[in-house]
């Protein structure tokens, strides 16, 4: 008998080491590996990988910024990474010198603006939406002095925000300090003045329970209002802020 009945297939060229250790990839995996290797020579896949890389990079930077990251640090980091990617492009370009097809232009040139658009447009949309929403400041105002006020008394209402908006809509409430006194709150009025900002020194006088809309201007983070009470004689009232919102 001979071994002809079970012939050993010849080793594929260049695969001597693998055959030597009897390590062979399954057929489905080796097939995919071959396809992937072939695909890498296709500039479309490479462009796609760079695009994914850029989108991931820009998205991370946007989220970092949205979560309160310092704009300078975020910008420098993102810029450095973008520069790294840009620096890779001449390396890719060198393939042309070796006689292979260049990967760019034109395809790679589209990748960077495309990545910026993919991340930038939704980020801009989200930013516009968030900016258009009023910021609730109702519980952030402090009044000084914190005591009952009478006709002619002035109270300073102040608040800080990290999310400045150009307009403040605020509503106060006056309630009677001494409940056994005759009812005197309904006729009271408030004069609200903004010492700084776009609407500074333009006092608004309204019934105490009406809404005041004040023009703060751009970027005011520390809001300060003076509130003067106009009430009946000897009418002691407690002043409070019932609602306050910053909006566009």
């Amino acid at each position: 008998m001979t071994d002809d009945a079970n012939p050993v297939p010849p080793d594929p060229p260049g695969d001597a080491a693998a055959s030597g250790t009897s390590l062979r990839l399954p057929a489905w995996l080796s097939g995919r590996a071959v396809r992937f290797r072939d695909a890498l020579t296709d500039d479309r896949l490479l462009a796609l990988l760079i695009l994914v890389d850029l989108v991931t990079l820009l998205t991370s930077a946007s989220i970092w910024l949205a979560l309160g990251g310092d704009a300078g640090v975020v910008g420098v980091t993102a810029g450095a990474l973008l520069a790294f990617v840009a620096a890779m492009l001449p390396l890719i370009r060198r393939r042309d010198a070796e006689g292979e097809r260049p990967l760019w232009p034109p395809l790679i040139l589209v990748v960077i603006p495309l990545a910026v658009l993919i991340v930038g447009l939704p980020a801009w949309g989200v930013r516009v939406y968030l900016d258009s929403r009023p910021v609730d400041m109702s519980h952030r105002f402090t009044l000084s002095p914190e005591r009952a006020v009478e006709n002619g008394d002035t109270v300073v209402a102040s608040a800080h925000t990290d999310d400045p908006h150009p307009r403040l809509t605020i509503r106060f409430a006056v309630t009677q300090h001494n409940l056994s006194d005759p009812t005197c709150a309904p006729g009271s009025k408030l004069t609200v003045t903004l010492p700084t900002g776009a609407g500074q020194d333009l006092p608004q006088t309204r019934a105490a329970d009406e809404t005041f809309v004040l023009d703060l201007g751009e970027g005011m983070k520390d809001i300060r209002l003076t509130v003067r009470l106009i009430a009946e004689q000897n009418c002691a009232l407690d002043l409070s802020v019932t609602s306050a919102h910053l909006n566009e």
Partner: protein
Amino acid sequence: MIHTTHAPGSGRPGVRRLVRTVAALLLITVTACVSDDKDEESGLRDTVFIGGKTDQPGFNLHAAHTDRGLEVDLANYLGGEIGFHPKFHDVISANREQELKEGSSALIIATYSIAPDRERNVDFVGPYLVTGQGFLIREDYQGLKTEKDVAGKEICTVDGSTSAEAELPRGTTRQKVADYSTCVRKLQRGAIDAVFTDEALLYGFVEQQKNSKVPLKVAPGVTAGQINRYGIGLPKGHTADCKSLVRALRTYLTEEWAADVQAQLPALVHAYPGDWENRFRPDPEDLDHYSSCNA
């Protein structure tokens, strides 16, 4: 082949029952909403017992089996508009809330100032008169010309009134009694220096005592305390009655108020010629701000 036919508009029995049930529930809900106020039993019909202070000239003075005064005129007007017959009985200031709680009075019309702590226990309709507070003195008395002069004086007020709680200059001695007639008698006897209460009320006593041996006057320009607004007190939760009273009072203020004040409080009109309506007459819109209900 058998065809089952249904009359137009009829459905299967189960569906019909469901439709009827839903319709009945909707009808009950709508009826309950619409009749919210109307089903409430009104306390303002036939004879209505009203707690008043029948010793207050100009507002309500019971003499010779007759009640006279601005509050009597007001009660009669309201009775005519709403359809009841008012019957006053005397109530002291300190007992006004209790009268309404116990049901001894259906209404209180007794120079009753609208105040937040009172509104916890009773509802108000008003105001029907607005007044500051002042000092009643003997006509020949020269010791009270400015607010500063009040310090060190012996002042009479009525227990349970807002004047009894009002802030007065340090050093003022305050005597609290049950009614204003007692204060006025003490003043005329010289036992006290002044009576402190609502200015409008004091002018009633000025008018009453103008021909007595010791005539009185309101110290001109001397004021203290807060502005009082007289309201009609009624038991809490009688929304339909409250609304009826607001509507009637609104017309009273524009149609009858001025004539009644001129007739019942001539000393007040005389003290502020040309200005008394501005000072004492409420704006009809005030009813929306100070009443416990809106109508």
